[in-house]
């Protein structure tokens, strides 16, 4: 029984590895370039990165008015 289980597990692993081995991969230079490009394109619309004014961020406290 356990021998059969071992064979099943080994066959599963081989099948899994065959699937992974058949995958098309890209060089890091290409993949990384795309990551950098996305960051650059969207940097202006990232409030945590650029910081937005207190008035447009509901979590930042608005400056209080002082009545003189």
């Amino acid at each position, binding site marked *: 029984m356990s021998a059969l*289980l071992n064979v099943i597990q080994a*066959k599963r692993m081989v099948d*899994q590895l065959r699937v992974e081995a058949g995958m098309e991969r890209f060089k890091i230079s290409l993949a990384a370039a795309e990551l*950098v490009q996305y960051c650059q394109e969207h940097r202006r619309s990232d409030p945590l990165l650029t910081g937005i004014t207190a008035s447009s961020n509901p979590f930042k406290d608005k400056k209080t008015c002082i009545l003189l």
Partner: protein
Amino acid sequence: MRGVTSARQQHQLAEAGEPWWRQRESERKRPNTRTSSTIPSPLCASSLKMACQALQSGESLATLKNESDSLKKKLEEERAKLHDVELNQVAEKVELVSALSIRTRRVLKGHGNKVLCMDWCKDKRRLVSSSQDGKVIVWDGYTLNKEHAVTMPCTWVMACAYAPSGCAVACGGLDNKCSVYPLSLDKNENLAAKKKSVAMHTNYLSGCSFTNSDMQLLTSSGDGTCALWDVESGQLLQSFHGHTADVLSLNLAPSETGNTFVSGGCDKKANVWDMRSGQNVQSFETHDSDINCVKYYPTGDAFASASDDGTCRLYDLRADREVAVYQKDSIIFGASSVDFSLSGRLLFAGYNDYTINVWDVLKGNRISVLFGHENRVSCVKVSPDGTSFASASWDTSLRIWA
């Protein structure tokens, strides 16, 4: 007779360590409505057939082991060939991130014990959080109002998630289940009465997430599996096997990139899965300890992980390998949670040393350290519009930073 399992088969299933809910499946007296390929039990008919065919065609345990060793070696070589440059080298020309003025803007107090998990509502102001004491609270982040509170019948509610519609929350933990609570506008209504048990695992629930609708729920569990459930019927739609230890976290790919999700667990592996077929399409194992959290990069082409080994790592799915490690010698405590800012440039990571570190994803350096929590940070999540991020901690509070 189809659909009926003999006593011997039931015993075999139990021996093989099958979760009880899968045993129940095969015990049904009526025909199974799902195809056998969706639930790959080691001793199901197709596996036995496959094993017999393998043995008949001359494949012995030894030849299979040889083939798996050579495939592993080939994979390593293939991956190494693509390692022509480092991410931070490609990002050399990118300007540095200017000083961030992020600090605590809200402190949400109300939980009586460690807060283990939180999630944002799509309306960008509400949050749900769950705690060790069994309480699940829905907050209005702007006003600090507690809008709903539910007491779960178990402690250690390790996972909670907001439904995309904002009309329900899912949560679970030591009860091994994931339950969905519809949120009522009537404050007096007892939420617990409308509770719907959806997912059933054989060990604790570590993570849950709605897919892009309120109708399906994806869960990860200490039983080593992930599963996709239909919320209405509670039916198991797909199960995901491959981890060899507790699965601690899962994250769905951004909707544009299709039906995949990533999971991370105590076997130090991060696996990417095809939701429709249940197939494990990619696997990464470079961490030295448990992976506590996995989170996709905004494009879905990469994901980050946080681990007990004190590092966070970035894995690119197209290059099929790790492309960055976010670490410092001074960081000796485990990282529990990560999330990306909207553009993917910043990585917020919560640690067991009570701090939150902000990393430059592209250049690999740490931009700042955020102090405030008085105990471990268990969960960090950026709000849907990217204007803030929330952190949950063992110090019983949640903080919103902006």
